[in-house]
């Protein structure tokens, strides 16, 4: 393992890989800082570049963007009271009060150091846990993979929206979209309306671009001038003192550990981790009285937690092919575009890719720390970029990105079509991530179900007879049941609150 890791470092430190990793971190921080733009959108915009690069180089660049984006979200959370990404939502609670007290630099410093701690701890966990999980996953059979696909979809559907039915609908629409084209088992046209373009099905890149990037531009144009006149405070005195570091360090470590384990659970991610870490540290931190008024621990806990989800989220994606959150679902798509199929075999067939990701994640944390400290002073300028100019450029990038896949305008039309679908889904609270996951996991589910049924002579009970498959199916039912129960509980609480007011 140690030798493989050293080989990974040798790949990461090759000039092109290193330069692109720096580029990934820088783009991630900038994109994360701009409200409305997320790390997933950043990855999508870089995809046309990514699939022309060697897999290891491309992936470390995307990991850089992922981690940079997580930290970047805190910049606008602290300076504008508007989280750049949902993962920075809890950072607003103490980051902005610090900014109001003239300590914006200090808040950014705490944020970057905590993000670094979270990133390092999650990378260590990634290196220790992922190979072990992959070893277990090599024992999976066809029925297990089918049930795993169902589990991935249900957990993403239940975690990514307020309404489980809407999440499941989104996932089913994705599965249905994956059926369009020539059937992979028998080879007949399916739901193509005799259209030659549809025979090839929908490529993943236009779907990703449409659902995550174009839909966002369509949404933003509705209220375009909201953030035009934001006032941003000057940033100075970035580095906290040793005493201050000692004060927030326990919160950062607790946040990191929580973040890693939340990241591992498929369908969760930074937004859940940051609030959970904030609430727990609020109860146990020494400066808990200051929480909400500008406590450094109140910035450290959510920031370490959201960055710690990065390594955690990569674990199920790399070992099982099931993403840990929205960004890793986009990264899963990127891996497939590059020609790498995530799963346990990745660890045996492409160990150089796996270990370059491990090594890259380590280096990225240091790059992010350096970049964050050196550039914190200039972060207010990033927030002044007129977003009324940026969004039109993004839509052209989306057009060019979809076109570059096969040099046809058909893919661009598909991207625009999914952009319209994504816009309406966003407008009416249907999460987009299960749709994309349905498109990704659909073929895997169909092929493995077919294999399982062939092996068992069409005995559907094979799905319940194999222990791993049964466990995934039970977990799927539990995730749906928990989601329905918590929604009902919230509804009851809201009704009681409304009744009390009346």
């Amino acid at each position: 393992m140690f030798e493989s890791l050293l080989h990974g470092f040798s790949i990461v430190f090759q000039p092109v890989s290193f330069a692109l990793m720096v580029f990934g971190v820088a783009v991630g921080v900038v994109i994360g800082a701009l409200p409305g733009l997320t790390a997933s959108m950043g990855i999508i915009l870089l995809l046309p570049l990514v699939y022309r690069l060697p897999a290891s180089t491309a992936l470390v660049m995307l990991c850089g963007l992922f981690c940079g984006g997580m930290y970047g979200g805190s910049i606008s959370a602290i300076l504008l009271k508007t989280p750049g990404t949902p993962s920075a939502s809890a950072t607003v609670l103490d980051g902005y009060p610090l900014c109001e007290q003239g300590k914006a630099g200090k808040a950014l410093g705490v944020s970057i150091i905590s993000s670094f701690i979270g990133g390092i701890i999650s990378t260590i966990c990634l290196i220790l846990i992922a190979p072990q999980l992959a070893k277990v996953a090599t024992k999976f059979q066809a029925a297990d993979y089918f049930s795993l696909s169902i589990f991935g979809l249900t957990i993403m559907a239940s975690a990514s929206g307020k309404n489980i039915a809407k999440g499941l609908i989104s996932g089913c629409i994705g599965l249905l979209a994956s059926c369009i084209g020539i059937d992979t088992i028998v080879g007949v046209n399916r739901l193509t309306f005799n259209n030659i373009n549809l025979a090839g099905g929908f490529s993943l890149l236009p779907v990703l671009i449409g659902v995550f990037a174009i839909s966002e531009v369509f949404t933003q144009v509705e209220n375009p001038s909201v953030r035009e006149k934001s006032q941003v405070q000057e940033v100075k005195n970035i580095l906290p003192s040793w005493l201050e570091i000692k004060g927030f360090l326990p919160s950062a470590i607790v946040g990191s550990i929580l973040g890693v384990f939340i990241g591992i659970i498929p369908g969760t991610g930074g937004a859940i981790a940051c609030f959970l870490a904030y609430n727990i540290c609020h109860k146990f931190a020494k400066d808990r009285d200051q929480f909400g008024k500008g406590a450094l621990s109140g910035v450290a806990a959510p920031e370490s937690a959201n960055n710690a989800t990065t390594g955690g989220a990569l674990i199920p994606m790399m070992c099982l092919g099931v993403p840990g959150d929205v960004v890793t679902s986009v990264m899963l798509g990127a891996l497939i575009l590059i020609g790498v199929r995530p799963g346990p075999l990745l660890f045996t067939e492409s160990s150089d890719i796996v270990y370059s990701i491990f090594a890259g994640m380590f280096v990225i944390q240091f790059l992010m720390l350096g970049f964050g400290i050196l550039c914190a002073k200039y972060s207010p300028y990033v927030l002044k970029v007129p977003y009324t100019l940026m969004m039109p450029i993004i839509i052209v990038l989306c057009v060019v990105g979809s076109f570059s896949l096969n040099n046809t305008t058909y893919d661009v039309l598909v991207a625009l079509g999914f952009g319209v679908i994504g816009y309406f889904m966003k407008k009416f609270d249907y999460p987009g991530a299960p749709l994309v996951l349905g498109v990704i996991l659909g073929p895997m589910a169909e092929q493995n179900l077919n294999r399982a049924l062939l092996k068992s002579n069409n005995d559907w009970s094979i799905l319940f007879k194999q222990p791993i498959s049964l466990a995934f199916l039970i977990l799927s039912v539990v995730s749906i049941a928990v989601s329905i129960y918590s929604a009902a509980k919230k509804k009851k609480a809201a009704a009681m609150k409304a009744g009390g007011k009346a």
Partner: protein
Amino acid sequence: MKDTRRVDFWTGIGLIALSVAVWAMTAGLMKVDRGIGPGDYPRVIAVLIFILGAIMSVTNCIHGYPEAGDKFNWKGFLRTVILAAMAFVYVLILPYAGFPVLTPFFLFGTIKLFGYKKNLTAIIVSVVTTIGLFLLFNVVFQIFLPLGFLG
């Protein structure tokens, strides 16, 4: 909180219609003796969509059909429709007019739609972005963007 019950009710009806259409369209596909045939998998998904559509319609109607939802931002929606229409027209004309000629107009139009006021800056950004992207893709990535009548 957004009240989307009216839309959800009609989405449910739409999903039921979609599932019936998928069921009908896959009816003629070949059957297999072992494993699953090409029509079986979409049909399983169609059944799921039917059930979920029914749940959406019934749950949103169970307390009576909502009289009115939230006030709709028609002005904002119109801007989205215009942008989507512009984007579709842009893509359809792209092979004939070419990327270098058409993109500055599309970009300028989109910038104005977003409400940016300085015309000169908008023109400069439109032209510079087009040239930059054209050079990046054609020269660096060797992806040849459509030239239209110029090619």
